[in-house]
């Protein structure tokens, strides 16, 4: 009976270690504060109707970015804990973390930073900017967009849930490689939490990818041919195609791992004819293109930023698009470089090594194009431009380290050392994250209607850049000296401790940068009157998102613009802007809470799988099916804004 009601749950699952107790208390405290705040200011209804149930990509985009920022806090806390342990744990001292806890921390750190921070920020920016850039009012499937966001939230809750129920996370590394992640070696619920967190958020990501792909292909403004699309839209298209191509691989692979654990199958087990190397192979077939999903939109952001702040059109647009295509394509045939040392022969290793090196060519083409865009431009050094220049230095640095790693012979020395860790952090922080920061600063006035404080933004940038090199240069050196990754203790005789301490200082400097960014937002909000953007075009922009007011009305454009060239808005400005007069009725999608309910049921289903609770699983499954049917046969999902209402709205806008 007890097993029927609560499955494998026992009182042991309640928090009883210091970190689960701390985590639980923190989560409870935050919830209480939020609940009190909402009740006190009477904002529950507003929150629900205006935000949570919204299908407006702009609102969903903002929610993505808020969620990603919260997860960035969590992931950064993990990073500090890892580095603190490594700085302390030398010789006779064993630091403050036990090995199993340390393993859980670096696992969670990796997963959170990739799936919930970087992906969250990117989907936020894509949601907000892509419809504006291609001159449309919504995504192709507004409901799927809302659902995708809520699945992402459900996944994010799932990855933190072990604090409250369960007590341990996967102690396996961020990809949960078998046989370590099999039931025999990880009998707890940690790996199950890992599986369902990724499965649920991955489903959301895939829905988002399909949505953006269809939107960009089918819903561009009249006249916007493929080769008139802004570079950011191009990269959004390619990144979404990658998502659509690879996330099914991830879903299938971890589903097989789950079958091993749940039904006792033998896909990746050590015995019974399982083949654990197949898991490594498949997960990297997904995993390598995944890092390009993260970085390619960054390339798009840099293209927009460089071109705007150099006040020139992007140099070599066609070669830029071709390079982005090249990177997308080659991304599929390099995955083996993640496991050169697994025992493949010289022919296989050589093929994948060479393909990996080739990917440096299109990347270099892009870097030269950006530099040539700046050449003879009238460059305005605003904060986004600083992030771009910082990116050029870090990315070139990390790229060259990557070329080193691409050589199988060198990789046998460097594999799984901190050199590799430093390399991919250079790419993800110095490439993707700097791009995200550039994008957020660049589009902030569009989102909120006021600019961010320049001075604090530049201080934050310098802290990040200096902190970044202070933190990661030691890791390159340590890696070359042979320090492996995921190291919770090392011998004092190695002499590594000073370098680890330097790295810890580096992350403290980064931390100051992050605090300055938080401060920047507060200060900018206080000074919003001085920084207000009344024109909708604060940077003298070139693309369509600047053609509408800041923040844009929920229908984006009262009249869909007709595009006649690349850099559409720039050319409109050259010709002289005219106010449109002929308003027509427009159709917008209604808000709906079904996305929340549906992802809630899927969450219950995942929870039931983790703890083997049959009735809850059936409930979650049935609930999800019913939600799908209700939505599928709901024909009342849109409302009309009539031409006269639109005229009134627009005239009110002009009065402001």
């Amino acid at each position, binding site marked *: 009976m007890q097993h029927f009601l609560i499955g494998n749950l026992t009182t042991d699952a309640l928090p009883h270690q210091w970190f689960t107790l701390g985590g639980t208390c923190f989560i409870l405290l935050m919830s209480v504060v939020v609940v009190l705040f909402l009740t006190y200011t009477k904002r529950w209804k507003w929150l629900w109707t205006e935000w949570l149930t919204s299908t407006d990509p702009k609102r969903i985009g903002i929610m993505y970015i808020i969620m990603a920022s919260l997860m960035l806090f969590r992931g950064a806390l993990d990073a500090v804990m890892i580095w603190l342990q490594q700085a302390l744990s030398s010789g006779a001292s064993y630091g403050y973390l036990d090995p199993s806890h340390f393993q859980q921390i670096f696992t969670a750190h990796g997963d959170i930073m990739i799936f919930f921070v970087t992906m969250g920020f990117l989907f936020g920016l894509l949601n907000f900017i892509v419809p504006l850039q291609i001159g449309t009012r919504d995504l*192709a*499937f507004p409901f799927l967009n809302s659902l995708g966001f809520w699945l992402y939230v459900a996944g994010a809750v799932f990855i933190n849930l072990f604090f409250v129920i369960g007590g341990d996370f996967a102690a396996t590394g961020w990809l949960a490689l078998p046989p370590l992640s099999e039931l025999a070696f990880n009998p707890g619920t940690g790996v199950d939490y890992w599986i369902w967190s990724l499965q649920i958020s991955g489903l959301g990501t*895939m829905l988002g990818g*399909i*949505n953006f*792909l*269809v939107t960009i*292909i*089918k*819903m561009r403004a009249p006249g916007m041919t493929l080769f008139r699309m802004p570079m950011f839209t191009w990269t959004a298209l390619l990144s979404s195609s990658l998502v*659509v*191509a*690879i*996330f*099914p*691989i991830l*879903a*299938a*692979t971890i589903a*097989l791992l789950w*079958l*091993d654990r749940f*039904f*006792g*199958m*033998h*896909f990746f*087990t050590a*015995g*019974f*004819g*399982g*083949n654990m190397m*197949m898991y490594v192979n*498949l997960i990297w077939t997904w995993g390598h293109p995944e890092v390009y999903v993260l970085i390619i939109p960054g390339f798009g952001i840099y293209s927009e930023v460089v071109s705007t702040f150099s006040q020139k059109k992007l140099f070599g647009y066609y070669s830029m698009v071709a390079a982005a295509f090249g990177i997308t394509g080659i991304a599929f045939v390099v995955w083996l470089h993640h496991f050169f040392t697994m025992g493949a022969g010289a022919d296989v290793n050589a093929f994948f090594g060479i393909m990996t090196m080739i990917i440096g060519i299109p990347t270099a083409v892009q870097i030269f194009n950006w530099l040539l865009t700046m050449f003879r431009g009238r460059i305005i050094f605003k904060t986004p431009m600083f992030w771009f220049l910082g990116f050029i230095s870090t990315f070139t640095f990390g790229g060259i380290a990557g070329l080193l790693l691409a050589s199988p012979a060198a990789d046998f020395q460097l594999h799984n050392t901190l050199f590799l860790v430093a390399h991919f952090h250079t790419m993800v922080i110095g490439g993707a994250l700097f791009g995200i920061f550039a994008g957020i600063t660049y589009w902030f006035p569009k989102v909120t209607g006021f600019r961010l404080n320049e001075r604090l933004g530049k201080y934050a940038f310098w802290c990040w850049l200096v902190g970044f090199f202070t933190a990661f240069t030691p890791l390159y050196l340590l890696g070359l000296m042979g320090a492996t990754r995921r190291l919770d203790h090392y011998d004092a005789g190695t002499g590594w401790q000073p370098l680890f301490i330097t790295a810890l200082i580096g992350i403290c400097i980064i931390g100051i940068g992050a605090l300055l960014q938080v401060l920047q937002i507060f200060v900018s909000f206080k000074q919003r009157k001085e920084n207000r953007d009344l024109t909708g075009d604060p940077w003298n922009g070139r693309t369509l998102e600047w053609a509408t007011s800041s923040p844009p009305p929920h229908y984006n454009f009262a009249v869909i613009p007709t595009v006649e060239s690349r850099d559409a808005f720039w050319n409109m400005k050259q010709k002289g802007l005219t106010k449109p007069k002929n308003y027509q009725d427009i*159709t917008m999608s209604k808000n709906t809470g079904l996305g929340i309910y549906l992802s809630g049921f899927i969450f219950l289903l995942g929870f039931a799988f983790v703890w083997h609770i049959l009735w809850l699983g059936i409930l979650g499954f049935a609930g999800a099916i019913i939600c799908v*049917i209700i939505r*599928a*046969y709901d*024909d009342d999902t849109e409302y009309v804004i009539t031409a006269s209402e639109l005229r009134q709205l627009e005239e009110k806008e002009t009065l402001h």
Partner: protein
Amino acid sequence: MADNNIQPVEHEHNDRVIFGFWVYLMTDLTMFAVLFAVYAVLRNNTFGGPTAGELLKLPQALAETLILLTSSFTCGLAVLAANAGSKKQAYLWFGITFLLGATFLGLELREFSHLLADGQSFRNSGFLSAFFTLVGTHGLHITVGLFWIAVSMVMMHVRGLTASIKSKLVRLGLFWHFLDIVWIFIFTIVYLMGAAR
């Protein structure tokens, strides 16, 4: 042609939805590709147990193939009938499709239960895990398809052949054809290649 001009918005929306569904089908295809790759790698890892050729019965697989193929055909006719506005014919052809699909599923379950009764469980070896998962995932899709047909028929009865219902039936048709295509490869790679010496 005149039809298209009456409601361009509706047409555009339909085009978008079908393309979106097509992209979803592609993701599903990729997922099946992973299962095929896993099966291909594990097919000889029988851990001392019998191989595919020794376990699987070709005549039954052929029967399943022909049944599913015919159902794909009848499903196509059903969608044509629905698009032509003939509710009666749509019921008829979808009904036949449903029966054929259910027969296919019944045969597949029979095969599974025989294997399990013989002690050839998915827990025995990497090969059997891969076999049950690949064929079972397809079966799961067929189950979803059958459920979808049933719901569609009920909704068609309640609401009649509205534009929105028609558009959903077109997608249902795509889904069903797609399942048949996946089955061709299961038949070839699992059954025929298993029996080929």
